[in-house]
């Protein structure tokens, strides 16, 4: 067992999600559960990657957190606590997003929590100029500013993403795809929020532009220090830019670990399958193995572990017991996984029992090992209060 180094700075939480459940449609109208019991904590400045196949619930989760999920989405359980830093400074206040009224939400939105959508072509108002779309939030949330100040800020924002100021008066259809996405990012950062949720922001772009934009994003994050929830189906992207990665399957979190831990030592068969799905640029040629089968339909979920029909390691217990997210047996890091292979009840296959990598660079988000709950307390959340 390698001792895990304690990180130098502990980021305080900015978002705490516990046992969140989301349905589509009300039960009386024949609704169906889309997300079940999702629990995680996001700290200031942390980049959380949310990965999974289409239909795994990652977008549903992301939109539900700021209560922006469209009809017929309904939140049916759990809590979402957002820690808002007041404008004048001082300790952050906890806001219960699920019971907040419209006005509270409106005051948080974009000031503390903003979003970047997948397709900028559809997310920008086609009949409004870029300047207007950048300054309307300023008008709403910074009422004391003069038009000149707003315009100055708009120019600043464009320059921040590398677009010249003469594009202010342009309409969205006059910009290229990459430029539009940059405008979206600039727009999301207009009020320097604490958390930016990005829903597949680069999926619609070509790889070259994708790389540019990701690099700009990371540079901005270094500079401004906001936390990110980055949703994507492209795991390889997350391995580079995420601090923590959460893998979702069938509306549940099945594994949560740092990027290094995940790529060096995956614990869940699904994560391993995902990692095996894209080839490495270097090294010997490997036979590519996909994951046989397809994700289950929301209306016809298998009993027990939702992944067991596609799992090569499925056992007896997997058909009836749904595993909970817990620290893998014998691990001392903060990572969690939901699989019976890791809780000591069954022997763990070698490829899922690789040793936790030693952290070469200190992570900002390491908790001291002593504070991480033992496997016997599977459902305890990690909060600041846990640390002595």
């Amino acid at each position, binding site marked *: 067992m390698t001792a895990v180094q304690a990180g130098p700075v502990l980021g305080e939480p900015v978002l705490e999600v516990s046992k969140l459940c989301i349905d589509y449609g009300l039960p009386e109208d024949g609704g169906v559960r889309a997300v079940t019991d999702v629990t995680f904590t996001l700290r200031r400045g942390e980049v959380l990657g949310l990965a999974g196949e289409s239909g795994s619930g990652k977008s549903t989760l992301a939109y539900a957190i*700021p209560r*922006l999920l*469209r*009809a017929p989405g309904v939140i049916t359980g759990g809590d979402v606590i957002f820690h808002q830093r007041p404008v004048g400074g001082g300790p952050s206040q906890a806001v219960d997003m699920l019971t907040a009224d419209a006005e509270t*939400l*409106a*005051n*948080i*939105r*974009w*000031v503390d929590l*903003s*979003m970047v*959508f*997948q*397709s900028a072509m*559809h*997310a*920008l*108002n*086609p*009949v*409004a100029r870029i300047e207007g779309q950048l300054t*309307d*939030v300023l008008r*709403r*949330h910074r009422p004391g500013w003069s038009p000149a100040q707003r315009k100055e800020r708009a120019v600043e924002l464009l320059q921040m993403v590398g677009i010249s100021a003469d594009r202010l008066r342009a*309409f969205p*259809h006059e910009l290229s795809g990459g430029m539009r996405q940059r405008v979206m990012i600039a727009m999301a950062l207009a009020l320097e929020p604490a958390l930016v949720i990005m829903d597949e922001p680069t999926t619609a772009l070509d790889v070259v532009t994708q790389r540019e934009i990701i690099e700009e994003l990371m540079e901005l994050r270094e500079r401004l220090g906001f936390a990110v929830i980055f949703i994507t189906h492209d795991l390889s992207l997350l391995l580079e830019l995420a601090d923590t990665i959460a893998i979702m399957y069938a509306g549940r979190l099945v594994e949560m670990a740092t990027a290094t831990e995940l790529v060096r030592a995956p614990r869940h068969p699904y994560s391993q399958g995902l990692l095996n799905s894209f080839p490495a640029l270097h090294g010997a040629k490997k036979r590519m193995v996909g994951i046989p089968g397809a994700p289950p339909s929301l209306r016809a979920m298998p009993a027990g572990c939702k992944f067991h029909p596609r799992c090569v390691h499925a056992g007896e217990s997997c058909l009836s017991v749904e595993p909970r997210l817990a620290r893998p047996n014998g691990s001392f890091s903060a990572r969690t996984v939901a699989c019976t292979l890791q809780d000591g009840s069954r022997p763990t296959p070698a490829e899922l029992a690789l040793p936790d990598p030693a952290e070469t660079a200190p992570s900002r988000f390491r908790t001291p090992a002593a504070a991480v709950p033992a496997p016997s307390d599977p459902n305890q959340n990690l909060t600041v209060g846990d640390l002595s």
Partner: protein
Amino acid sequence: MPLLIRRIGFYLIAAYAAITLDFFIPRMLPGNALSAILTQMRGVVTPAQLASMAAEYGADDKQSLLSQYFTYVGHTLSGNFGLSLSHQETPVSTVLGGDLPWTIGLIGSATVVAFLLGTLIGIMAGWRRGGLLDAIVPVSTFFQAIPYFVLGLLLLIIFGSDLAWFPIGGGYDTTNRYVTYVQGWNWPYMSSVLQHLVLPGTTVVLASIAGWIVGMRNMMITTMDEDYVLVAAAKGLSRFRVIGIAARNAILPTISNFTLSISLVVTGAVLVEVVFDYPGIGNEMFNAITAADYPLLQGILLVVTFAVLIANFLADLAYVVLDPRSRREA
């Protein structure tokens, strides 16, 4: 810009087609009908006028068809529509000049009201789905399905005849024994005009508003699924602004659908005029048909067609102004 130029080009072609069609109408009449008309006119017009009219309608063989056509086009473009048979040789253009303001007043005011009310109701119905306003859809379907003039008749019967809230005919009061109304910008006359405008105007509004309401509602529902509306809500903008953004985008297809319906509105209004004996072009046309006054008919047809084309053009102009994407160079 290219879009507008294409549209203008089309309108010119359509205008040309209308003039040509108009030219052929009297010539399509069965032979004896034409000579019957000319016979009927023998006592009314001078022999010289009769001869020129016969020439214009192709009853004599002195001019070839082609030269007749060019004469006709020339006359039309210079505003010479001939003489009206049923109005004692008054030039058609004079007759129409007197009727046109009434019709434009009726259609114009009704369309403005229907547009404003209809789009507002449609926006609210689209925004608040599943609410009470959704019931507006079957109600407006009700009005949409009844032919304009049947609706007018029903309104006339209920409000004009039975309840006697509003006058049952005319553009303004001509039967009042106590007061003689002088046409012009004076209040007694204007108030009488307004009073007489209510029923026919309401008919046109009720019959056409359904299209605006349902069209706007459906477009709002479709538009609200767009990401940029969700972005507006995500930005914490006020509900009013979010609706405004959605409506601003939803109105575009509604306007281009409006251009489709202009000629329907015009024909409907024409019929309403007949029901209410309103002194506009529609009523004039009805009388002209009964009297077989072909010069007047041709003139009316042309004027109405040009009016529809101009209205279409104005709507196209509005669309280009409102939708920056349409200004894209092709």
